């Protein structure tokens, strides 16, 4: 996927919301308990979180807790990763469903070129290859 450096990408909607599957992409430092923690000094890796994940199996670690207080997220991950809320909206018929993949990353790194040229296109590819119609982005 080619990403423009100048333009903000914008894709018009072609489906009604109640026919769309949504995934979450978050830079809040979300990962599964079983996944290796992000590097405190910066990390451009991302993790795929399965669509059927139990919120209790998620945790957070982040490089700069002084700049991002994630204590509330550890009590209730839905404050930055609203997986249970999406399921409720799907059950209520507001959206079509919850996608099979979500993405977690820390997003904090000094290696911006690698983030821009490798990580972000790889995330876009993961999303494109899933059953996702729309993405909820959260920054933490």
């Amino acid at each position: 996927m080619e990403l423009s450096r100048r333009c903000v990408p914008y894709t018009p909607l072609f489906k009604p919301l109640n026919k769309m599957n949504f995934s979450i992409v978050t830079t809040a430092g979300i990962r599964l308990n079983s996944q290796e923690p992000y590097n405190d000094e910066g990390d451009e890796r991302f993790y795929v979180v399965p669509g059927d994940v139990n919120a209790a199996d998620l945790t957070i670690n982040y490089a700069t807790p002084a700049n991002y207080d994630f204590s509330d997220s550890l009590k209730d991950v839905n404050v930055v990763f609203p997986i249970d809320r999406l399921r409720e909206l799907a059950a209520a018929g507001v959206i079509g469903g919850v996608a099979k993949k979500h993405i977690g990353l820390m997003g904090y790194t000094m290696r911006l070129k690698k983030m821009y040229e490798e990580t972000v296109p790889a995330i876009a590819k993961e999303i494109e290859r899933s059953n996702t119609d729309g993405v909820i982005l959260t920054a933490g």
Partner: protein
Amino acid sequence: MRPPRAIEPEGFKIGNSLGHPDQPDLQRQVVQTAIEYMNQLVMPGKVTPIHFEGY
């Protein structure tokens, strides 16, 4: 950061993107609002502030 479509819940602190812990109704309202705004936010990169009661 210039997302295609963005809302900003007014007054929410960093780390509370959707609200406080154990406020499922508010969290759901914020997510639903963001989703329903997808058809209304037509200026890429513009962040739209929205006030939510109960935060």
